[in-house]
C-alpha cells in the first residue's frame, strides 16, 4: 500500500521560468486555485497560501468564514531551479487541518531542447482527506477542484500560451 501520489507533466519552458511560476506569488496566483503563495526559500523557511478574494466571496455567499491562510508548510529543501521539498497542510477544511503535515516534492528536470519534465511527488501518509483533495474531482469547478493534475495542466497552459485554461 502506497501513500504516495505522483503527478507529471512536460512543459515547454526554461527551468528558471517554471521555478519562478512556482515560487513567486505574482506568478503562482495566476493559475490553479488562484491563491498567492509565498515562500521563504531556505531550509526551515515558511510557506503560506493566502485565500483569494474569489474564495472569500464564495465562503461568504455560502455562509461560512474563510481562513486567511488556506495552506501552510515549511521549506525542507530549496535547490533553484531544480528541486523544492516542503511540508504542506490545507487549513481551510477541518478534515485536512486535523491531519498531519504531508510532504510535497517538485522536481524540474531537462527532458529535451527547451522542454522540462515537472514531477510532483506527494507523500500522504496518514492523510486520506488530503489524498482525496489532491487527487481531484473530475469536475474542476466543483468543491475541492481538480487537484494537482488540473493545477499542472493550468500551469503548462499559462507558461506556454500566456493564458490559463479558464481563459482569464
Amino acid at each position: 500500500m502506497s501513500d504516495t501520489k505522483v503527478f507529471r507533466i512536460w512543459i515547454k519552458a526554461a527551468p528558471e521560468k517554471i521555478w519562478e511560476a512556482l515560487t513567486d506569488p505574482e506568478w503562482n496566483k495566476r493559475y490553479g486555485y488562484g491563491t498567492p503563495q509565498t515562500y521563504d526559500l531556505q531550509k526551515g523557511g515558511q510557506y503560506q497560501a493566502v485565500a483569494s478574494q474569489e474564495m472569500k466571496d464564495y465562503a461568504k455567499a455560502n455562509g461560512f468564514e474563510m481562513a486567511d491562510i488556506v495552506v501552510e508548510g515549511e521549506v525542507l529543501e530549496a535547490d533553484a531551479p531544480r528541486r523544492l521539498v516542503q511540508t504542506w497542510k490545507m487549513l481551510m477544511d477541518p478534515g485536512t487541518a486535523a491531519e498531519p503535515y504531508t510532504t510535497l516534492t517538485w522536481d524540474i528536470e531537462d527532458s529535451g531542447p527547451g522542454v522540462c519534465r515537472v514531477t510532483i511527488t506527494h507523500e500522504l501518509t496518514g492523510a486520506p482527506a488530503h489524498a482525496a483533495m489532491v487527487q481531484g474531482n473530475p469536475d474542476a469547478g466543483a468543491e475541492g477542484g481538480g487537484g494537482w493534475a488540473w493545477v499542472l495542466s493550468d500551469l503548462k497552459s499559462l507558461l506556454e500560451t500566456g493564458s490559463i485554461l479558464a481563459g482569464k
Partner: protein
Amino acid sequence: MTDDDRVFKALADPSRRFLLDLLFARDGRTLTELESALAMTRFGVAKHLRVLEEAGLVVTRRSGREKLHFLNPVPIRQIHDRWIDKYTEHQITTLIDLKHTLEEES
C-alpha cells in the same frame, strides 16, 4: 508521434487500461504484483507498462531495490481540458450523475 498520439495509442489497448485500473485502485505496485493480476507473461506486462510510461500515464520510482509504478492522471486531465471547458463541465457532471443514479436503481 506527438504526445497526444502516444496517450491515445496507450489507452487503445484493454490490457493497458486494466493496468491503469489496477493502479487507480492502489498505487505504487511492483511489476510482480501487477503481473499476478493478468493472464500474461512477465515480459508482456513489462512491455505494456513501458508503453504506458512512454505516454506519461505511468511514472516509476525506485524504492530500495523495488521499482514502483504510479498512475499519472495528468495526461488524461489534459485530454479532458482540451474539449471540456469550465462552462460545459457542470452540465456534463449532472448528466453523468443522472446516469449513475438511474443505473443504480434498475
